[in-house]
């Protein structure tokens, strides 16, 4: 017994030190720690998936009940929206044809073929200082670091870590998320910076830029991380130099996301990620000479 007690007394300070050491090591982005992290995620995936499903079913049922109450109004609204969208479809068709003709005239290089996988959200970071998702698709589904995560209405974030069958998506709201964007219309450039709140901030706006509530924010495609003109959200508050953006996607209610390979290899460090196919490298930049 005395031996055990002594070991325990020694143990706690040692473990506290070890934790502190781990934190410091983590700062250096050690590959082993990254690997271990995703190995744990891979191993826990089936369990998380199992737990996530009934909760998803329950909330879906709640939503259905809610929706049933407002069926008539919803139907009315959708009819009107449908009529409006049909007009837009007409416009879009004309534009596609015209765009194709103009590209032909200019010998404009074709965009890379885009591939995507749909993945289920199995975990969300619940702490106060990280905003990310764990999804059930990984390297075996051709998911690679830096790929773009979208949900129906717009951009969600990008893949930051990849395991064999799971991947972590860094959300736009995370403290470490920085996305080059433009204000649609004025083409004013800025960087969308997450700060762990649900509404990220527009930073590095030029002082002459005019921003008003309701302005649409899309990706700029600069830096080669994202293709241009992916919808992100709209400006909801302008207070002095602090401009906040409400995202189109409700990040708290994501069940599925699409992870898209645009064939871009951007400015992410290459060391930890599975290498993209060499044939694709560089083509992304060439396909985007307008920026």
């Amino acid at each position: 017994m005395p031996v055990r007690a002594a070991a325990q007394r020694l143990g706690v300070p040692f473990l506290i030190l070890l934790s502190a050491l781990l934190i410091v090591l983590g700062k250096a982005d050690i590959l082993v720690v990254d690997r271990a992290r995703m190995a744990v995620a891979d191993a826990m995936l089936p369990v998380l998936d199992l737990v996530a499903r009934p909760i998803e079913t329950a909330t879906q049922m709640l939503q259905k009940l809610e929706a049933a109450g407002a069926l008539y109004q919803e139907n009315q609204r959708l009819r009107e929206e449908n009529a409006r969208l049909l007009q837009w479809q007409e416009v879009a068709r004309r534009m596609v044809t015209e765009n194709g003709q103009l590209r032909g005239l200019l010998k404009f290089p074709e965009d890379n073929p885009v591939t995507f996988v749909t993945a289920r959200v199995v975990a969300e970071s619940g702490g106060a200082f990280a905003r990310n998702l764990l999804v059930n698709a990984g390297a075996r589904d051709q998911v690679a670091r830096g790929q773009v995560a979208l949900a129906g209405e717009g951009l969600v974030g990008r893949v930051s870590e990849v395991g064999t069958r799971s991947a972590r998506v860094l959300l736009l709201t995370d403290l470490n998320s920085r996305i080059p964007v433009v204000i649609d219309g004025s083409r004013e450039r800025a960087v969308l910076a997450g700060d762990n709140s649900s509404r990220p901030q527009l930073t590095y706006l030029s002082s002459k830029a005019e921003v008003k509530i309701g302005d649409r924010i899309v990706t700029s495609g600069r830096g080669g991380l994202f293709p241009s003109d992916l919808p992100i959200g709209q400006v909801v508050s302008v207070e002095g130099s602090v401009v906040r953006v409400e995202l189109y996607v409700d990040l708290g209610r994501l069940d599925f996301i699409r992870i898209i390979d645009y064939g871009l290899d951007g400015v992410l460090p290459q060391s930890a990620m599975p290498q993209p196919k060499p044939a694709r490298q560089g083509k992304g930049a060439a396909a985007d000479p307008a920026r």
Partner: protein
Amino acid sequence: MAIARAQRDDGIAARLMPAVTTILAATLSVVPMRMPGFAVVTPAFALMAVYHWTIYRPELLAPLGVFVIGVYLDFLNGTPAGLSALTLLLAQVLVMGRRRWFVNRSFPFVWLGFAGLAGLFMAMQWAVAGLFDLRMLDFRPFAFQGVLTVAIFPIASWVLVRAQRAFLRAA
């Protein structure tokens, strides 16, 4: 002596209970709950389990277990590895020295103790996360998570007490 005898009387499954419930609590904190606002900040379930077992059955939740569960939680959360391990261990040490205050006390008193601990815990997380990122973090999400954690504690405590009664003899 009483502890040693209780340990002998409990089966293996029973003795693993505290560790298993703490792992479950850690896992629960990353499960997507589709409640508006809830996903942004979820309660620190693991802290509740650590608090409970450190008061009632400290011999069954060794610091090494807390460390491993903390690292596991950090891995799942995508937070700096060691952050939860460090703060959970410090929380355990804090409670360990004062557990006599809480054993056999009424629930409101235990709850009050937990409120104090949760406050300190969130302050520690805020400080360590800030040091890691080398900037002042907004304190509000941490404060909010603390309040949420304290508010949910009675439910977690109820579940843990049931589990303890079902599987473990009184120490």
